[in-house]
């Protein structure tokens, strides 16, 4: 049986990298007595995969891992068992059964949305109204928004505009923050700080990565032209 688990990652846990989160969940599955499937061989490993790895320093309300289990208690009971053994800063918020034909979360991720806010003690540069005007000028009113994207091997020009699905300023006038929904996944993986730092550059501002807290809201797949949350692709397990 395929199961998708959604979790939050916040507080000091943002400093725990992706590989260590995988190890953390492998141990958590055992502690919570999840009847997870193992591979064959001398060092069997759990059948588990993560949706879209989160960078160190980023918090999230929408992290996902898919597992395969022999049997499962109800969603409610399983979530309670897992939450019983979480550390502060990790919280299970969803546990659903996927259709047997479901592809792994990793392979279907199409978009993710983020809130980028200013950390305490760092200047916000502009008020919310000023930022809105700036975005109009440097982004929305431009026919394209071409940046240089560095890959391991080379640099290439890329137009971000068609890959940004939503961009707005929110928060208060004095403490503005940015909401960004953009293309994520194996084909066009755009990181939100790439967009924000490019906007800073276009506006002639110096971007300080230390000033910005990035928070992921959720991760989405695309179905018939609309984005749906990865959790909504499964169904709650009602009975054990």
């Amino acid at each position, binding site marked *: 049986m395929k199961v998708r688990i959604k979790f939050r990652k916040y507080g000091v846990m943002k400093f725990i990298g992706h590989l260590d989160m995988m190890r953390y969940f492998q141990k*958590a599955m055992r*502690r919570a007595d999840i009847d997870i499937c193992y591979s064959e061989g001398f060092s069997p490993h759990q059948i588990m995969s993560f949706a879209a790895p989160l960078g*160190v320093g980023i918090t999230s309300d929408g992290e996902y891992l898919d597992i395969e289990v022999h049997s499962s208690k109800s969603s409610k009971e399983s979530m309670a068992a897992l939450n019983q*053994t979480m550390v502060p*800063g990790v919280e299970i918020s969803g546990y659903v059964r996927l259709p047997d034909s479901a592809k792994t979360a990793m392979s279907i991720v199409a978009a993710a949305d983020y809130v980028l806010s200013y950390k305490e003690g760092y200047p916000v540069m502009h008020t919310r109204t000023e930022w809105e005007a700036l975005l109009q000028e440097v982004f929305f009113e431009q026919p394209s928004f071409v940046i240089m994207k560095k890959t391991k091997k080379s640099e290439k020009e890329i137009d971000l505009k068609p890959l940004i699905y939503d961009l707005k300023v929110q928060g208060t006038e004095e403490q503005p923050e940015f909401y960004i929904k953009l293309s994520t996944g194996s084909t066009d993986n755009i990181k939100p700080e790439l967009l924000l730092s490019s906007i800073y550059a276009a506006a002639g501002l110096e971007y300080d990565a*230390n000033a910005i807290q990035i928070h992921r809201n959720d991760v989405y797949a695309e179905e018939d032209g609309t984005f749906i949350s990865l959790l909504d692709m499964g169904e709650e397990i009602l009975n054990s």
Partner: protein
Amino acid sequence: MAKLALSDEILMQIEKPARYIGNELNSIVKDKNTIDIRVAMVFPDVYDIGMSHLGIQILYDMFNRREDTWCERVYSPWPDLHAIMKEKKIPLFGLESQEPIKNFDFIAMTLQYEMCYTNVLQILDLAQTPLLASERGEDDPIVIGGGPCTYNPEPIADFFDFFYIGEGETQYDALFDMYKQMKNDGASRKEILHAIAKIEGMYVPSLYEVSYKEDGTIAAFTPKYEDIPKTIKKQIVMDLTTSVYPEKPIVPFIKVTQDRVVLEIQRGCIRGCRFCQAGMIYRPNREKDVERLKDLAYKMLKSTGHEEISLSSLSSSDYSQLEELVTFLIDEFHGKGVNISLPSLRIDAFSLDVMGKVQDIKKSSLTFAPEAGSQRLRDVINKGLTKEVILNGAGQAFEGGWNKVKLYFMLGLPTETEEDMKAIPELANDIAALYYETVPKEQRNGKCQITISTSFFVPKPFTPFQWAGMQTPDEYLRRAKIVNDTVKAQLNHKSIRYNWHEADVTVLEGVLARGDRRLSKAILYVYEHGGFFDAWSEFFDYSKWIEAFEACGIDTDFYTMRNRPDDEIFPWDFIDAGVTKEFMLREWHNAQNEKVTPNCRMRCSGCGAKQFNGGVCFEGQN
């Protein structure tokens, strides 16, 4: 979640920030307003190493069972963070509360190897606590040292307020109770330390005086006050079965060296190898009952979710209920996603059978530690492993499908000759030849691979070899070269690989292991000139140490090169480790006569450990 001591900006620029944030599963956070005693438990090396240490986990668990005490962990900040903390004057903090440890009651450090001594100073320095005990005041924490290195605490005596000699399980409760009472009564630091010195096993160096003879050896070691004990008796827990053990060990986020459940099956060793300090200071051998171990295995796997369980002890094959325990672990947990990691066992039918069940034979290797190449030298060191036993074990293993063998030896053992050195590759060659004889060509999984590793022998206090002299670094390397050249001359040299240890570190370990109080200033000099993380070859700088010894007027040959006379007073003689100096001297003479001493189960050799009234000394005598 505590507010972190380090800013996001700092944590984002250093390696492995998870080393410094605490919050691990099973770590203990208390309300500091309900606490009387705050303890920083320090392993003076990086988190990844220190988190794997069992002793700290036992004491962490034990201290935190007290409602009035909060014990937190501290590890050495890696050099990247060290530089930032120095520059920004950030005080070293406990992982759990993220608060400065300079405000704690105690800073307790475990000293597992001599090369961590400069890291001791790093901890005190970053904690913003005076490095010298004599300069600490009423508001500074009391700095405690524990662990195997305290069997000669003298080289680091200036940095510690007191040392706890022996196993931590026995005296800390009494000590904390007394501290709390005295503190409430308004006692001074001096008064508290004086009172601590009267608890059995506690050594307060500032309360003792050392005088030296003209030749530099010790003339006398005497307490400054009449009510302070002349000898310090090692502390030891006699009933390991009921003694405290962490049922919910901390589970680190990052991969550490021991990323598994560790079951301590016994303490002490019956063997009596003459070079081995652990084999002497942990006497008598005491076992933990197998039923308790089974129960612990369940509880610890459940509370951690670890995917691996391993056994910890000296000479695990001597644990009397090993077969029952290992069979239980395999039946109970193997095949449920839990790996059983076996300690290096004596190679016989039983161990090969269990190894075959839990390891991939093609990938795993057999381990032998003959320690010396020739039978003559093995008799000198009292290592009761014969060539026949090794070849017999290897032969059985080859028949079972293994083709990798690791061999561990020491070079520079007392009385070593060129023949002894050459015997090392010759033994490896014989094992390789046996493989090609035993396994028909069509059944071979490639060549057999024999790896020889040699370390250089360092004489340690409380061993029969504590009287032995060492060699110069050049001489050590010459001996390694003899081994290397002999490897190349062997018929099966293509199946043999040889690694050897660095020689400079060996000599320094020798100085620090058997040195006296006069070394403290050299260690301080090295730290103050930027030397630390000496246990890491990428940071170890031998030239700094040479400079320090010169600047402090210390002749290291005095500590390393002399064969010490039988009647010399050693810096550590004031410690009563149970095993007597008479026994060790007898063993030192037996070594020179190439005379083997039987193990504790074969015959009692009267080492002195019987005074503890238990363990192997009383086996089968209820």
